[in-house]
């Protein structure tokens, strides 16, 4: 019964929004595209015409995950355009409403697609809401942005989410510590044997306690 409720809510929301011109702010995980022009690097499928004649997502907002090939994208699409976008194999749509618990049906897809982008997701469970998941993911992204801005790419030279901190080059370790501390995080519980996936979560859970603005919402 518990598992069925989010599914019913999702189906209900699809039915409701299918008759409205503009639905609600929704969140997607999409790859990066480099225009080589005015747009610079931008989230895939946000450029007019990307998914056919007349395709136009309107105003959009995104956060990129350091130098990884990932944007979290906030869009307010029609139900039809949402369906078109989510039919793309490289798009992960966060189910709606985001205050519902993660469904058992969606759990594996969420974990697989996030981890494919080097975003740790082993902590995602059906006990969490999509909002709680987004909140943590957005903070992981924000931390990695600071690291990128001061150092560069973390997942380079063979490093993965399951790499231990003491397997990283010393300058990368130092930069991680400095990036975390510059955002007010206490890194004393992170040791040399801590996996990167765990370290990212430890830091993410400490930063931006006042809220993180994204897509017109606060996480």
């Amino acid at each position, binding site marked *: 019964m518990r598992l069925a409720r989010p599914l019913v809510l999702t189906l209900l929301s699809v039915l409701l929004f299918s008759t409205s011109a503009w639905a609600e702010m929704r969140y997607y995980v999409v790859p990066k595209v480099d225009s080589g022009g005015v747009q610079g690097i931008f989230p895939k499928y946000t450029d007019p015409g990307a998914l056919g004649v007349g395709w136009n997502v309107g*105003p959009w907002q995104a*956060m*990129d995950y350091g130098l990884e090939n990932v944007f979290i994208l906030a869009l307010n699409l029609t139900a039809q355009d949402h369906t078109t976008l989510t039919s793309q194999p490289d798009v992960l749509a966060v189910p709606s409403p985001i205050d519902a618990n993660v469904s058992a049906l969606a759990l594996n897809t969420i974990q697989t697609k996030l981890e494919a982008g080097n975003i740790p997701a082993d902590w995602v469970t059906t006990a969490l809401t999509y909002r709680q998941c987004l909140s943590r993911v957005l903070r992981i992204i*924000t931390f990695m942005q600071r690291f*990128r801005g001061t150092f560069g790419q973390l997942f380079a030279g063979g490093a993965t989410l399951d790499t231990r901190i003491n397997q990283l080059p010393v300058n990368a370790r130092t930069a991680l510590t400095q990036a975390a501390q510059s955002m007010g995080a206490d890194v004393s519980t992170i040791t040399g044997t801590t996996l990167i996936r765990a370290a990212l979560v430890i830091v993410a859970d400490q930063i*931006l306690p006042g809220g993180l*603005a994204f897509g017109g919402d606060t996480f």
Partner: protein
Amino acid sequence: MALPATDSFTGTSGTQLHTYNASWTEQRASDLHCEISGAGGGTPNTVRAAATGGSEAAAKWDGDTFTADQYSQAKAVNASNYAGPTVRMVGVTAAAENGYVALIDGLAIDLQRIDNGVRTNLQGGIGSIASGDTLKLEIVGTTLKVYVNGVQVGTNQTDSNYATGQPGIAFIGSGAELDDWMADTIPTGAGGPPFVLVAN
């Protein structure tokens, strides 16, 4: 100098920006220079990117010290081309240019980040802008906001890549002109909407 920093770009057409006013530092000197407009066309006493020599131009104001929380604004003289105010800018070569820009993009606005001279679009197609409008970019902590004539467009943007830097201006191509630039620090706690006191 005293803040706010201002510049109305009243100078000899064709003069490179850093020559016209030593408070400006060119950030893409091997790409395009910023210059006082009007030579060979354009609007005198405004600023633009030089017509030839590269693809993008940027300059930051080093004549004052700014805190990390700051804003930069400029008037759009030609609102259909690509230019805008920048914040937290560092670097004096294209390869080292970092910071944020509110970019006029075809009568709408993009909020972009510049990483080692390469731009990443964070918000696209937000708001609208016309010639004569003032475009403002503000950053407080990790929150960026864009305003047109004092009204916020788009939504609050969280980005933590760059923690410090100087305000300035940036151009893509040579068609845009800006005027009446202004920048200042934002006092701690001054971000967001003003407080309204209501008597009990």
